């Protein structure tokens, strides 16, 4: 196939789920050896469109043409045999099997038709790994690998199936920055080898960096498509949200008051050592660092979820003993965890139940939960936080990511926490919801709450915080004023630690 000719051509794709239209007449062309980014807010239809290309969903309308031939993909395996592989957000590997076994899962080399050829399985895996210079060993079990390494296994699995197009759904959302760099190198390598990549992401900086072409979806329709060079980030954002976001990080008018929470010499094993910092009323303090630097662990220790071994936590100047989340919640300290599906929400339970969970006593009267009062509280937060698609009685899991996040935030607002620890509050949520979260953090600061804001996105830390603490290998190595620093400086501290003068 000649360079530049369309490998995959999707025409007029339409899809609806139980009467709700999620894709309307969408076209997408992916040429051989191009990196094509598909961007859009959550719920814009990016993943649905690509799952249609991968045979997970069947389109209601439209056609799929691969290398000039019309195809139907009733099952994912049909897409794979046509050369299209998809790597999902939740990776699909068998954790107890080895790297080599996963790469050739379902296509194991065999002897005499049915005996597994273990030595060929390993040698071919080793050859694939070495060809791509991946940091993997064929005999390692997948469960022992990091998220980034698992992704590499998925890529090899796709390559072993002779895939010509690899779809990656939010590939950098769960891996470290170093692993992301490695992924970008691999994507370049795939492009050079003539393999196309469709890259679904929220992180527009990444998209600008690696994409050849960009398609923007909004509310199930294609609103823009073009060469990477035709777009700058504000333009992409405008297409995504359908409105101009002039001031992305809203300004804050908060008086910074007295120290509320003070952490002194907090340590636990190798996770973090001698961590000390203060949070003042009305202050938003950022926490930067690479994945594994110990940021989440510090927040969990302050919250009592995994207590520290040494060190003190002081609230209003006096030492407090917090050895369980229950004690933290009673003292009005809230933690918004980084993984809302795993540690944040009860997905099958109603929105209202999720919102009142940390302060159920406030809707209990004489040992009885007052249903009407609870409904009113829930509806109040749904209105105040603009939680779209939510009704108090609707299951939380039915909401989109950004709106789920608002449900968890409402839980801590209802608790009226004085100290809020926000761990990656904008991860995996769309641009509009991000802006709402920023606005909300500002409102909390204006009310005199102290906010710790952990994030891996430096622009938002610099845009939102008063100060930024930088962690490196379990220690705080820098405490810089957000207005007086640059992303480069913070990244330098995060990546190499304190440089001795």
């Amino acid at each position, binding site marked *: 196939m000649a360079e530049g000719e369309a490998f995959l051509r999707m025409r007029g794709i339409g899809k609806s789920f139980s009467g709700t239209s999620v894709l309307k007449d969408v076209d997408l062309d992916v040429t051989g050896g191009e990196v094509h980014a598909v961007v859009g807010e959550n719920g814009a239809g990016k993943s649905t469109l690509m799952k249609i290309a991968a045979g997970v969903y069947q389109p209601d309308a439209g056609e799929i043409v691969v290398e000039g031939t019309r195809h139907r993909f009733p099952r994912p395996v049909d897409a794979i045999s046509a050369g299209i592989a998809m790597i999902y957000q939740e990776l699909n590997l068998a954790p107890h099997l080895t790297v080599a076994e996963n790469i050739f899962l379902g296509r194991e080399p065999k002897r005499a038709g049915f005996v597994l050829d273990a030595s060929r399985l390993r040698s071919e895996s080793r050859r694939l790994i070495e060809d791509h210079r991946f940091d993997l060993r064929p005999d390692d079990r997948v469960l022992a690998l990091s998220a980034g390494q698992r992704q590499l296994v998925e890529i090899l699995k796709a390559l072993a199936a002779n895939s010509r197009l690899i779809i990656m759904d939010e590939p950098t959302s769960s891996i470290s920055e170093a692993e992301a760099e490695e992924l970008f190198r691999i994507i370049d390598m795939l492009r050079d080898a003539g393999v196309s990549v469709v890259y679904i992401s929220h992180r527009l900086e990444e998209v600008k960096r690696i994409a050849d072409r960009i398609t923007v979806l909004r509310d199930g329709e294609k609103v823009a498509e073009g060469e990477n060079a035709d777009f700058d980030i504000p333009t992409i954002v405008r297409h995504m949200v359908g409105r101009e976001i002039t001031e992305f990080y809203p300004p804050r008018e908060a008086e910074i008051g007295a120290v509320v929470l003070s952490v002194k010499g907090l340590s636990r094993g190798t996770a973090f050592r001698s961590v000390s910092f203060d949070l003042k009323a009305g202050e938003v303090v950022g926490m930067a660092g690479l994945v594994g630097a110990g940021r989440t662990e510090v927040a969990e220790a302050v919250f009592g979820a995994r207590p520290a071994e040494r060190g003190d936590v002081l609230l209003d100047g006096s030492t407090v003993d917090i050895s369980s*989340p229950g004690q933290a919640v009673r003292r009005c300290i809230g933690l918004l965890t980084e993984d809302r599906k*795993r540690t944040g*929400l*009860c997905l099958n339970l109603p929105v209202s*139940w999720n919102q009142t969970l*940390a302060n*159920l006593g406030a809707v209990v009267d004489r040992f009885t*939960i007052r*249903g009407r009062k609870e409904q009113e509280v829930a509806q109040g937060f749904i209105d105040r936080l603009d939680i779209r698609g939510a009704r108090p009685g609707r299951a939380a899991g039915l909401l989109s990511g950004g709106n789920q996040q608002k449900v968890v935030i409402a839980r801590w607002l209802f608790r009226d926490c004085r100290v809020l620890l926000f761990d990656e509050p904008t991860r995996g949520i769309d641009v509009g919801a991000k802006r709402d979260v920023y606005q909300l953090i500002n409102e909390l600061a204006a009310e005199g709450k102290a906010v710790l804001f952990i994030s891996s996105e430096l622009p938002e830390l610099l845009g939102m915080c008063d100060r930024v603490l930088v962690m490196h290998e379990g220690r705080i190595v820098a405490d810089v004023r957000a207005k007086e620093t640059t992303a480069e400086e913070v990244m330098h501290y995060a990546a190499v630690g304190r440089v001795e003068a």
Partner: protein
Amino acid sequence: MKDKIKGILPFVGLALLCIVLSVVTDKFLTVRNLSNVLRRSAPVVIMSTGMTFVIVSGGIDLSVGSVLALAGVCGTMAMSACPSAGLMGGLLAAVLVGGLCGAVNGALTVALRIPSFIATLGMMSIARGVALMVTHEVPVTENLPESFVTFGTGSLFGVLPWPLVVMLCVVIAGAFLMRYTPLGRYTYAIGSNREAAYHSGIAVSRYSIIIYTLAGLLTGLAGLIVMARLNSGQPTEGVGMELTVIAAVVIGGGSLSGGEGTILGAVVGALLMAVLLNGCVLLGVSHNVQKLVIGGLIIAAVALDQYLRRRGAAD
């Protein structure tokens, strides 16, 4: 909407079954027959109430059949040894022993982090062993008070069998606890997402122990009812009963992965099985075929549930 359909399905099933049996047999719709069916199903319904808490919280209790026997014989032995304590003394002893077994189950799962399936499997064997040891494998029949017999076979105002009265009180209290109190709410939260419940400040360990203890208390109560009907303490009673109780919760919409299920659903699940068995007897269906029918009901109920879930998943 689909949740509502799912919620009323067991009720519809039970109603249809009752209508069919009323038409095809002339003995089903009689006070005597219905009163017997309810009296006999009271222990299972009472245990299903406790089991609903355990299953909704994401656990399982395999020990209830054995704990029923142990608590039942302990209650009977208490009355036998100390007749002046009367029925109340027996009830207290049975409920305490049952509650203790439940508390141990809860502590094993929480403190030693043993999966509830394994912890209660161990308790199932231990409780049965202790029940056989304390009775020397001989039923307890001596010195039992008259009130014990009345409790098993008599009626309130001559119409409401005592086991049925106890059952109604337990079901109403259990449904209230589940729906309207923090205990019930936390039970759902823990079963739906234990980590999220913990990170919301809920004392997950303490509530888990309370839940297993509650199941044990109710099992003890059911134990004395069973022994009263037999007018003796039988250490071999309740073998396999845990499966009937679990089946009742599951037929009533409970999910073994936790976070789903209702007390009323479990009650209807238990009654559905009891009425189906009664129907089989009235229609002269052989004992062996009855087992096939119950097995089919369990599989059909869960298959239907899964089907509705798949239909609802795209929402």
